[in-house]
C-alpha cells in the first residue's frame, strides 16, 4: 500500500517537474503543437520520452528504497537493529512487586555476524534482569518468569511494561517494538519491522544482479544460465518451426480447396480456443516429460495459429489480382508462387509473431511443470528454496527474451514484407 502511494506521488510529482522544466525550453512549432484539439485526437498523442525514462527509474528507485539497497542513499525506514531495552514490573504469589530490565539484541541474520549473548547483572529483588536475541522481522517469546524467584508459582504475573499496564491477550507499544502478552502471561516481543521488504519477499536489485553474475558464471542445477535459456529458446524455435511447416501448407490447402476446408474446419475451430496449457497433462501422459513432449506441446500451440493465418492470407487475396494474373497468362502454379504466397506473407508474419509469443509463454509454463533444464525450471526450482533473487532474475530474463523475440520478428517483418499495411 505504501509502495502504491509512493508510486502515485512520484508519478504526479514527475509530471509537474517535467512540465515546469520543459516550459523553460523553447517549444517547437511542429504541426501537432499547433493543434488546438488534442484531447481525443489519437494522432496528437505521442509518448513523452521523459515520462518513459522517469517511469523506469521510478520502478528501480522504489525497488531499491523498499529493499534497503546500497545503490541509493535514501531508503524507507528499515527494521530496527540494535539493543532494545524495557523494564517490567512483576507481582509474585504473595502480592509483592519488583521491577527488572530486559535487554534484547536485534540483529540481521543476513549480515552474517551473530552477536554474543550479553552478560548482565541479575539485579536485586525477586525479579531478575533478562537478556535475549531476536532476528530482524521475527518476534521472540521473552520468558522473564524463568529466572525470577517464584516465577513458576501460581499468582506470579507481569503487570506492567515501561510503566504501561499489561494483561494477557493485550498489546502495548514501546520504542521500536510491540509487546504482546500471551494468554499464559508470557511476553512476545516484535521489534519494529520498518517499511522495507524482507529479502525473502523481495531482494534488493544488487542482490538480484549478483545472483545473475553468480548463476551466469557457475550455472544452476548442473546447467549454465545460457544452457537454461538456450534450451527454452531451442524448444520454442523447434516447436514453432514444426507448427509452421505443417500449419502453413495446411492453411493454404484450406484456403484453396473446399474439401480440405470442410475436412479440417471442425478440427481447427475446435482446437484453436483450447489453451496450450490445458494440453500439458495429456502431453505428459502420452509423451512423458522429456524433450519430445515439450516440442509436441509447442508444435500444437503454434500449429493452429499458423494454419489460421495462412488460410486468412489466402482468403484475403484481392480477386482482381488473381484475375489479372490469369489474363496475363499465368498458370495455376505460377499464380500460387507469384501471387498467392507473397500476398499471404503479411498475414503469416502476424501469425508467426503471435505464435512465437504464445510458444514462449507455453514453454515456460511447461518447464514449471516438469523439466531438467530451462528458464521455467530454473525459477520454479529456485522458489522451492526461497531463492527469491533467482526467481526475480529469471522473470526479468524471460521478459527480456520475450520482448527481444517480438522485436526481432517485427524487424524481419519490415524487411521481408515492406508492403504490409500499404
Amino acid at each position, binding site marked *: 500500500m505504501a509502495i502504491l502511494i509512493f508510486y502515485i506521488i512520484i508519478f504526479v510529482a514527475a509530471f509537474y517537474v517535467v512540465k515546469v522544466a520543459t516550459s523553460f525550453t523553447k517549444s517547437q512549432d511542429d504541426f501537432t503543437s499547433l493543434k488546438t484539439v488534442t484531447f481525443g485526437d489519437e494522432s496528437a498523442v505521442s509518448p513523452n520520452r521523459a515520462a518513459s525514462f522517469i517511469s523506469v527509474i521510478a520502478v528501480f528507485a522504489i525497488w531499491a528504497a523498499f529493499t534497503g539497497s546500497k545503490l541509493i542513499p535514501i531508503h524507507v525506514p528499515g527494521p530496527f537493529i540494535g539493543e532494545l531495552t524495557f523494564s517490567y514490573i512483576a507481582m509474585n504469589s504473595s502480592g509483592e512487586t519488583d521491577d527488572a530490565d530486559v535487554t534484547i539484541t536485534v540483529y540481521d541474520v543476513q549480515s552474517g555476524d551473530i552477536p554474543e549473548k550479553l552478560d548482565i547483572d541479575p539485579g536485586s529483588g525477586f525479579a531478575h534482569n533478562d537478556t535475549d536475541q531476536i532476528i530482524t522481522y521475527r518476534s521472540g517469546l521473552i520468558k522473564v518468569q524463568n529466572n525470577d524467584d517464584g516465577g513458576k508459582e501460581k499468582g506470579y504475573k507481569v503487570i506492567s511494561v515501561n510503566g504501561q499496564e499489561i494483561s494477557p491477550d493485550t498489546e502495548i507499544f514501546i520504542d521500536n517494538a510491540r509487546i504482546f502478552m500471551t494468554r499464559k502471561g508470557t511476553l512476545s516481543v516484535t521489534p519494529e519491522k520498518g517499511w522495507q521488504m524482507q529479502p525473502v519477499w523481495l531482494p534488493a536489485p544488487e542482490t538480484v544482479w549478483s545472483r545473475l553474475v553468480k548463476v551466469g558464471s557457475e550455472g544452476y542445477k548442473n546447467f549454465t544460465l545460457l544452457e537454461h535459456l538456450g534450451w527454452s529458446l531451442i524448444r520454442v524455435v523447434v516447436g514453432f518451426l514444426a507448427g509452421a511447416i505443417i500449419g502453413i501448407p495446411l492453411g493454404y490447402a484450406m484456403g484453396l480447396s473446399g474439401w480440405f476446408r470442410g475436412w479440417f474446419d471442425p478440427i481447427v475451430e475446435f482446437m484453436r480456443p483450447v489453451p496450450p496449457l490445458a494440453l500439458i497433462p495429456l502431453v505428459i501422459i502420452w509423451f512423458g516429460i522429456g524433450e519430445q513432449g515439450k516440442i509436441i506441446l509447442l508444435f500444437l500451440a503454434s500449429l493452429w495459429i499458423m494454419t489460421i493465418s495462412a488460410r486468412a492470407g489466402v482468403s484475403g487475396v484481392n480477386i*482482381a489480382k488473381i*484475375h489479372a494474373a490469369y489474363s*496475363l*497468362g499465368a498458370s495455376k502454379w505460377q499464380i500460387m508462387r*507469384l501471387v498467392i504466397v507473397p500476398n499471404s*506473407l503479411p498475414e503469416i508474419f502476424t501469425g508467426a509473431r503471435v505464435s512465437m509469443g504464445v510458444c514462449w509463454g507455453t514453454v515456460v509454463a511447461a518447464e514449471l511443470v516438469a523439466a531438467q533444464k530451462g528458464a521455467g525450471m530454473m525459477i520454479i526450482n529456485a522458489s522451492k528454496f526461497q531463492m527469491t533473487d533467482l526467481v526475480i532474475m529469471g522473470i526479468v530474463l524471460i521478459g527480456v527474451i520475450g520482448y527481444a523475440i517480438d522485436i526481432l520478428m517485427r524487424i524481419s517483418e519490415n524487411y521481408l514484407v515492406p*508492403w504490409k499495411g500499404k
Partner: protein
Amino acid sequence: MKGLSINNISMRFDLKNGSSVQALKDVSLDIDEGQIITVLGPSGCGKTTLLNIVAGFLAPTEGNVVLNEQVVQGPGAERGMVFQQGALFEWMNVQSNVAFGPRMKGMSKSEQGEKVKHLLEIVGLADFEDKAVYELSGGMQQRVALARCLANDPDVILMDEPLGALDALTREKMQGLVLKLWKETGKTIILITHSVEEAVLLGERLLVLAPRPGRIHKEYTLPFAEMGVNMDLREVKKADGYTKTRDEILSIIWEMEEEIMGRAEEN
C-alpha cells in the same frame, strides 16, 4: 475474320432462395479490330458480368464469345484486363509488375527490360522502374496497370472502370492517355464506366445497357474519340454535338435509374 464477336449471350444463375437472376439476355455485338467501345448503364445492368464473360472468368449460360475465330473458353493472355484498383502486385516493384506478362511467356530478361522501359516511357513513368507500387499515387498505379496490360501485347484490352477511383483532374489526364495508347497501339478496347462524359469522350461506339435483364438498350457511333487523339479533351467537349449527345444519354440513364427506384419502392 479478325475481331471480337459476342454472340447471343445470356447469363442466368440461381440464387440460394430458389429464385434466379437474369443478368444478361441475348446480348450480341461485333467489334472490329482496333475499335474502342465504351459501355454505360445503371448499376446492376450486367456491365461487369459482360466483361467477365469476354475475359473468360465467367461462362455464359447461352451464346459464346469468339475472338479471331477462336471461341473463348477461359482467361487468356490475348485478352488483357485493367481493373479499377488493387490489382497490382505490391510485392513487386514497377519493373516486375510490368514485366509479369512477358515473364509468363518466357521472354528473356533483357527483352523484358527493354519492353518495360519502352512501355513506361509511353505511359509517362520513365525512371520509375525500381519504385515500389505502394509508393505511387493512384493515377501512377493505373499507368503501371495499363503498361502491364500492354506488355503482354493482347489483342483486346478489357477495362473495368479503370479510372473510377481517381480524382477528377487525374482522371481527365488518364482519359487522354487511354486515347493516346489506343491510337498508338491499335488495340481493340472495351471500357466500362459509370461516367457518361467518359463514355462519350472515349467511345467510338457507345453502348447503353438496360437492366433486368441486362441487354443492349441503345448504341451510338461517336466522333469524339477520334477527335480526342489529336486534341485536348477540354476542346473536344466544346465540339458540335458533344453536349447534346451527353445530355441525351444522361437522361436515358436517369430514366432507367428512376424506374429501378420505382420498382424498389413497389416492392
